[in-house]
């Protein structure tokens, strides 16, 4: 059985700028892939290509074995897509709109009512089914957006920032829904909210300046980024060379006001030596605390320092 999504050396240029440059990855059934990246990194462009809204400039893209370029209709049948702006006809009621979506996705006529009821239930829209989309709150509109992506029960669901504009309770519900969908579908979601990735995804992928920087499973990642780190604060500027020569120290990041982050190998705790050196040089140690790195720090590190890619 082939993977649900196979992306091979996919690129997209807008004029001469490469929005997406030579990325390759796979998505298997049962995986929830979190797509991370700063603004303008190429997340949305990639998702548009995956959904068939945008043609790639180079590379191949296979959805459940069907090539998006040569068999677009078969490939698109497998996909449910929520773009960054939900595509809603606001002058229609929820039921009218979702019925139209089901028809567009070739849901057989006799199954439409069942699919509609099921989707309304899943997305918590049953109470507002007869309301005009325009008169719904942003959160509910976002839910209608998700509903249109899943009404035809696609094998791949692509969600571009699905929790934007939702209140905390709704966010929780949507995350549960995504997790639930992830069990028997392949899900790709892009987001800025890193805790969302930690909570819902099984895989993480970081895209930066159009290139794929990292693809890891969340379990591996947790071990990777939970490196140890020390924060020290001094009165005088320190000599960085002296400190970085201490065995076990990987890297020292300088912050303003004489604050330094020292990353080290957990097996060779250098805090003792660091203290000694600072005191002996009279730099005036004011504070020393262990720092727990989060996914966020790790994300910032990877996106602000492209050399780390290799």
């Amino acid at each position: 059985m082939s993977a649900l999504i196979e992306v091979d050396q996919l690129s997209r240029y807008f004029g001469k700028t490469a929005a997406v440059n030579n990325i390759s990855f796979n998505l298997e059934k049962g995986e929830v892939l979190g797509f991370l990246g700063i603004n303008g990194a190429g997340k949305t462009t990639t998702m548009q290509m995956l959904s068939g809204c945008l043609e790639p400039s180079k590379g191949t893209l296979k959805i459940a074995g069907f090539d998006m370029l040569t068999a677009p209709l078969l490939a698109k049948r497998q996909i449910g897509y929520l773009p960054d702006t939900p595509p809603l006809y606001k002058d229609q009621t929820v039921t009218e709109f979702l019925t139209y979506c089901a028809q567009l996705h070739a849901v057989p006529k006799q199954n439409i009512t069942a699919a509609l009821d099921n989707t309304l239930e899943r997305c918590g829209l049953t109470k507002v089914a007869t309301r005009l989309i325009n008169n719904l709150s942003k959160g509910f509109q976002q839910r209608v957006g998700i509903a249109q992506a899943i009404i035809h029960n696609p094998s791949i669901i692509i969600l571009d920032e699905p929790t934007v504009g939702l209140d905390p309770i709704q966010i929780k519900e949507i995350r549960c829904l995504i997790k639930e969908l992830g069990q028997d579908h392949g899900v790709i979601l892009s987001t800025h909210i890193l805790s969302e990735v930690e909570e819902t995804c099984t895989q993480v992928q970081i895209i930066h300046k159009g290139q794929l920087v990292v693809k890891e499973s969340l379990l591996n990642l947790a071990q990777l980024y939970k490196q140890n780190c020390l924060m020290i604060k001094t009165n005088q500027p320190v000599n960085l060379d002296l400190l970085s020569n201490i065995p076990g120290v990987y890297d020292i990041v300088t912050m303003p006001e004489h604050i330094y982050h020292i990353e080290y190998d957990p097996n060779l705790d250098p805090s003792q030596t660091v203290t000694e050196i600072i005191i002996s040089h009279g730099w005036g140690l004011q504070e020393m605390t262990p720092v727990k790195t989060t996914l966020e720090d790790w994300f910032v590190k990877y996106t602000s320092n492209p050399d780390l890619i290799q």
Partner: protein
Amino acid sequence: MITTIASHEFKSHFKSPMAWTLLAVLQIIIAYIFLTQVETFILMQAKLENIQGAPGLTDIIITPLFSNAGIILLLVTPLLTMRVICEERRNKTLNLLLSAPISNTEIILGKFIGTLGLLWVMVLLIALIPLALLLGGDLDLGKYFANVLGLSLLVAAFTATGVFMSTIVNHPTVAAMGTFGSLLILWLFNISKTISDQPNQLIEYLSLLNHFQNIQSGLIDTNDLGYFVVFISLFIVLSIRYLSDQQLRLKKTLLTIIMVTVLANMAWLSNIYTYQIDATYNASNTLSVNTQKLLDALPDPVTITTYIEKGQSIRSQIAQLVDRYQHQKKNITLTFIDPKDKDLKITPDSIVTVEYQGRHENLAYVDEAMLSQALFKLGNNQANKIDIPIKNAQDKFLQLTETQITLLNYLYLLCLPFILLLTGIIIWQKRKSK
């Protein structure tokens, strides 16, 4: 899938007050033009009765009514088509269609048919208005249906242009302006017929109005039908090509070029191999049998020169008549000369000169009888008479009582528009508060 998109598009027009308002306004304008025309006819009726070969009810009321409707729909169509693709692209709802398993062809055709449906409802509304004439007179139904057909094809051509404009530009207003501008230019190409002595054949072929008027006259010609089919298909093919932001792919570009070439060839063929049906009941667009026989008996080229000032509508009437002769006999040439340009003194009885084998005849005016008579004389070298039957319109009478006219006024100008408007408002109010 085309029907799904088309019916969605069609229905959504009627869910907003826009379509209803347009229908109501259209009803008022067309009915007003119609009722004025009816009054004119009733006044002229007595005079017309005594004129040989005078135009009938259909010519005086229905043909101008449909011409006016054509101009009004030229203004209305851009308003309806401007949002078709453009607005979806701006609101990002186009992604819904693009990511669904539907081809670009289905999207464009669905949108086109959906919008055309609304315009055809308008054509239906316009077509129903003059049927009131049947209360007090006869109509040339063949010509009436030719008018309906002509207007239907015309709005289809308008819609195709509108959909194309909406596909390529990124703002509805620009799409509306673009559609309106290009349609107006195509419409006005027709002017060259009356303002220049040697009209450009290509430009004349491109003119929408020319083909529309040809169909309106009741003469259904494959040339005109072919023009509309090619016109509509061309804009549809181009819309399909430009719908999604595609990378330049050789295969698709080639395919588009091939399609356009095929369409151009179709237009050319429909121009060469023509077939005509005269839908009018007294075959007023067809030459009489005697004229046909006469023309077959004249082997040498005929030159017809007319001395009429530029911009006179009689020029196009003469051109239309000579066109019928040219259909039967290929080597007839028609030239127009403006007497002002050459400082010629033209006497009223030599406005038209017909030349054959070096001899010529001067005429004060041309209709079939006079032109055939002149040709007969020139061909036979004798002053015998040829018998050309005069085709009298059979729909000459209209008898409507005062009450009937008042009732029509109330129905057309008040009741119907009011009902349409009210329906629109009710539907809109109901939906708005959902």
